[in-house]
């Protein structure tokens, strides 16, 4: 099982290759969308790279649960309701959603994901 440092280095390499950013931009606190400029298609690229790098399978919707974000039971007026937040936390135990919870606007969800969240997810899979 790889150490936390090894996981971080491989995640960093995947993000550098997928997003064309410099090594030093990829810090644990950096957000994928806000700081590293990831766009929607980049997430597919990142998933493919992580799968190859760690020899894992990332089922659709596990890393980015878009089904919750588009479910009208959970989204009201563009915001995730309490049930939706509960479901998100259940599905994403690897992510720190405390900031997102303060103003759970769907469009802001992707911007809240950090490199550390990504590392936590990978650690749960390897």
């Amino acid at each position, binding site marked *: 099982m790889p150490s936390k440092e090894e996981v971080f280095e491989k995640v960093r390499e995947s993000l550098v*290759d*997928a997003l*064309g950013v410099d090594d030093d931009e990829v810090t644990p606190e950096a957000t994928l969308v806000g700081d590293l400029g990831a766009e929607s*298609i*980049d997430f*597919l*690229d990142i998933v*493919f790279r992580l*799968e*190859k790098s760690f020899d894992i399978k990332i089922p*659709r919707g596990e890393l980015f649960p878009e089904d919750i974000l588009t479910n009208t039971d959970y989204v009201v007026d563009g915001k995730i309701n309490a049930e939706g937040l509960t479901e998100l936390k259940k599905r994403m135990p690897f992510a720190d959603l405390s900031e997102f919870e303060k103003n759970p606007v769907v469009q802001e969800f992707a911007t809240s994901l950090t490199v550390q969240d990504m590392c936590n997810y990978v650690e749960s899979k390897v």
Partner: protein
Amino acid sequence: MRWFWIDRFTELVSGETATAIKTISLSEEHLHDHFSGIPTMPNSLILEGMAQTAGMLVSQFNAFKERVILAKVPRLVFHCRGVPGDTLTYRAKLEAIEETGARAITTSHIGERIQAEAEILFAHIDRETAHRPLFEGEDFGDLLKSLRIFEVGRNPDGSQLNCPEHLLSKT
């Protein structure tokens, strides 16, 4: 008129690899001005040829039922020019494929010499309307026939690749 940037496939193993060729001819109009006195195959069209090679490989894997679009080119390197008289050999290797898209590694060679290499990401889009014909008024089966995909295509076990039933009536 269609946007053809490969002449034909020479090999295709379903879900794995594909090879196609493109011979550059001085009669191609875009070479007359690109560049004056130094006819050079535009690199963008070479990328398109590599993408068409890989894209067909991706599309064939899903029996040509998905709408496959070139979504991203994370890496692209050109090593030398392609000029009239050159035959570009495009090779594509499918690295990953899933419901939402696929990733392929492609190269372009002139003889033994590597001319270009690219990583290409494809997305499957518009799944809700994927049953509607993508080539209205055109015969997609004829396009595949022109490219000789089923002539050279094989399954991984070596058996002949068959044309999907929904295209049979059109080929």
